């Protein structure tokens, strides 16, 4: 029986096992790939670690730091091993694992941390019109083929969606000799980090078509052309604004979704706003002893915050196992209010001792200046001024225990201006 099992060995899993470590506990880290590091391995560009390590690293370098940090800790690691299912029976987690050494096997654990990252939203999910030829794929897949396997997937490329992966891939494919004809984004603003718009598009004269979407795809066997159109405020295409591009590749960077589909049997509460688990400030899900962090919880734009969040989740999981007496939770909700898309955690467990906790959230609008407010019931208990707010960039607020005035629900809102 393991005390803590961490599923997924990316930035989140590495940080979680690091802080869950205790010499008296039996720990296990499970990773489906043959090496640790997760998505970072394919992000060979710079821009990782500015917050956490105070220096600019590439993805693989950041992963290497994480791997080094746990090198001397004694816990078990299973690589090339996939978790196929997790069930909880009378307080014990039964984890079905698969690998080529054991075949299918079941292991048991007192606590589980889900750090399985995210997957990319596909063409089917956004219901793109047109034919379905070869040549349309998620940008992250193209990134993997290029940076890990060493293959280019196309020569004339268009990108739908201005998520970071799409922007990074626009530059990356250009540098490999492909022609990148443009990036279309249905929203009136970009979904990527500002620095990526500048460094990946502007610096390479790649046009960004805001308020545009794909309205047709041509080609029976291989992709031949795509058509984009401008959309109105209801996201409906405006006739007469069509532009057609002859391309052999369409990369989709239209969103990431926490990858927790393997855990359906656990039936924990899932948020329709983040598509990840609903958690309290300890990153504990609705199932006691089950924690979640990193992109498996909500999609992060910066790995530094993945590490920070996951270290906490690991620590709380350790506290959970070490604690001897059963706990009762008393939860108050934290809801997104005006101009806020989501807030995480969704609950505060007020039976817990804590001085402060970090709320992660995303605004629904861009603004040069604005104020984030936290209300408890009718009372404004916290506010913070912010600059350069954008839906693409995660915001963080520090909520102090001493800010709380009652046991009423909390609401976080954003006010543009001043």
């Amino acid at each position, binding site marked *: 029986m393991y005390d803590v099992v961490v599923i997924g060995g990316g930035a989140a899993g590495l940080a979680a096992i690091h802080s869950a470590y205790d010499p008296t506990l039996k720990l296990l880290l499970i990773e*489906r790939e043959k090496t640790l590091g997760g998505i970072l391995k394919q992000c060979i560009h710079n821009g990782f670690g500015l917050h956490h390590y105070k220096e600019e690293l590439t993805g693989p370098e950041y992963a290497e730091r994480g791997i080094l940090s746990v090198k001397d800790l004694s816990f078990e690691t299973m690589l*090339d091993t*996939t978790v*196929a299912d997790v069930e909880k029976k009378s307080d014990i987690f039964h984890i079905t694992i*698969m*690998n*080529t*050494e*054991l*075949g*299918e096997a079941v292991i048991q654990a007192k606590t589980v941390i889900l750090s399985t990252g995210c*997957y*990319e939203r*596909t*063409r*089917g*999910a956004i*219901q*793109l*019109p*047109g*034919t*379905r*030829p*070869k*040549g349309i*794929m*998620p940008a*992250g*897949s193209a990134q*993997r*083929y*290029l*940076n*890990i*396997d*060493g*293959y*280019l*997937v*196309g*020569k004339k490329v268009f990108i739908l969606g201005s998520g970071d992966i799409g922007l990074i891939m626009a530059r990356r494919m250009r540098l*490999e000799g492909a022609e990148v004809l443009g990036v279309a984004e249905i929203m009136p603003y970009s979904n990527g980090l500002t620095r990526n718009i500048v460094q990946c598009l502007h610096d390479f004269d790649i046009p960004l078509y805001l308020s545009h979407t794909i*309205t*047709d*795809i041509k080609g*029976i*066997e*291989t992709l031949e052309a795509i058509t984009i159109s401008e959309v109105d405020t209801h996201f409906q295409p405006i006739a007469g604004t069509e532009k057609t591009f002859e391309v052999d590749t369409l990369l989709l960077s239209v969103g990431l979704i926490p*990858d927790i*589909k*393997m855990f*359906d049997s656990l039936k924990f509460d899932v948020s*329709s706003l983040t598509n990840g688990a609903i958690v309290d400030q300890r990153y504990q899900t609705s199932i006691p002893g089950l924690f979640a962090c990193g992109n498996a919880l909500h999609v992060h734009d910066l790995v530094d915050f993945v590490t920070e969040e996951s270290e906490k989740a690991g620590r709380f999981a350790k506290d959970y196992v070490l604690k001897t007496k059963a706990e009762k939770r008393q939860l108050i909700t934290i809801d997104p209010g005006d101009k806020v898309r989501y807030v995480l955690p969704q609950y505060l467990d007020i039976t817990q001792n804590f001085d402060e906790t970090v709320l992660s959230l995303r605004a629904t609008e861009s603004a040069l200046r604005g104020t984030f407010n936290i209300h408890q019931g009718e009372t404004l208990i916290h506010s913070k001024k912010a600059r350069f707010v954008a839906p693409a960039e995660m915001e963080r607020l520090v909520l102090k225990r001493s800010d709380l005035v009652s046991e009423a629900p909390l609401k976080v809102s954003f006010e543009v201006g001043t």
Partner: protein
Amino acid sequence: MYDFIVIGAGISGALITRELSKYQGSVLLLEKENDVGNHATIANSAIVHSGHDPEPNSLKAQLCVRGNALYEVLEKELNIPLLRTGAFVLAHDKEEEATLDMLYRRSKTNKVPDVHYLSIEEARTLEPNLSDSVTKVLSLPSTKVTYPWEVALSAVENAIMNGAEFRKNQTVTSIDYKDGIFVVKVNKDECLHARFVINASGAFADQVAAMLEQEVPYKITPRRGEYFVLDRRVKGFINRTLYPVPTDKGKGVLLVPQVHGNILIGPNSVFQDSKQDITNTKDGLNYVKEEASRLAKDIPYNQVIRTFTGIRATSTYKDFYISSSKAYPQFIHVAGIDSPGLTAAPAIAEYVVNDLIKKLTPLVRKTNFNPYREKIKMFHDMTPEEKKEAFKNEPRYGRLICKCEKVTEGDVIQHIHRIIPGDTVKGVKKRARAGSGICQGGYCEVDVIKLISKELNIPLKSVNYYHQDTPILLKETKVKK
């Protein structure tokens, strides 16, 4: 020189080829695509209809009811999946209820078994998500659901086991008749010879027929049908096929539970010029949504994993056109095979062989015909003992590559080395389901490409997405690996 050449490896051509392989004589099946069943047979509602809908005394009615019964045999012999779901036809007002009564009488005439009315309460107990506006329900217990593509694949594989020959990537480009022999040219170069030609080329049937016939007695007018596919997590949202009452446009937009747990929503019905343009349109999908809301409430569209389009080979001849050519009797038209084509397919095969070919030439049954084709059992579906045994022989059953559909490397390998190999990314997807789930191959595509390359000993750059010359990995770069 062949006794029989069958053109088109859709479900019709596949089952005809298998039927012919029961007899002595050589059979060659030609398919223009890179795999079996890539046209109507992969993109449809997958329903084995009861026969409640076709006009009495039509070939459609006769072959549909017979075909439905033959699926029970195919299930045993070819190990194809068959869900005995049954179906409801739903009426919403007096006018529709009158149509329902007409269908009830028609079902009786067509000899559809066990048709009966249900009270709204009974219907709602069985289907809690039924739309509130439904006023009357006709139940069709003999309606089933299958995986039509696998029916075609398994029929061709079984025919090959029994001596038939299958060639893919062979487009028939001309047909001549000289001295009692057909000369069938493929890919504009190679000439093949046969005593009989069976034209089962689906939407292309009129074009293929025109290669030989001065006058083709029908024209194919392609009719598009568009769908949403819901993830298999929604399994149980509905448990049987839900039909609206039919209109002059056909059977209408349906909700259909699929054998792998997904739910289909569609199709619409729009005539178009192209026989192969499988475009999805915004209008089409919106129409499907609107119509589907009459069948069930709160359909979970947030679980849509993909959309697709199928093309019906509707012909100007109202019924199926299955007949010997007037001018060249040994040329057999299997045309206008739109709905209920998959249901009818096993009966079409019987009809072509027993009622048409046997009238022209004596056929001698093989004594050693083997009707069985083993199914490749997926690791996920095995019992714990079977899993142990399989893993002992093939450790790669231990590596899960498609997390959505729980497909292992061992599973994929079995399908790569099948009688008709799954040698493309989509070929593997159709056989082993790797990439059919919510991430649509985001995780496993790379593993599938590598497995095909390794198992078939071909370069990564030669692994196709689907058609010939559609590699996903185009060009090797200087990136160090």
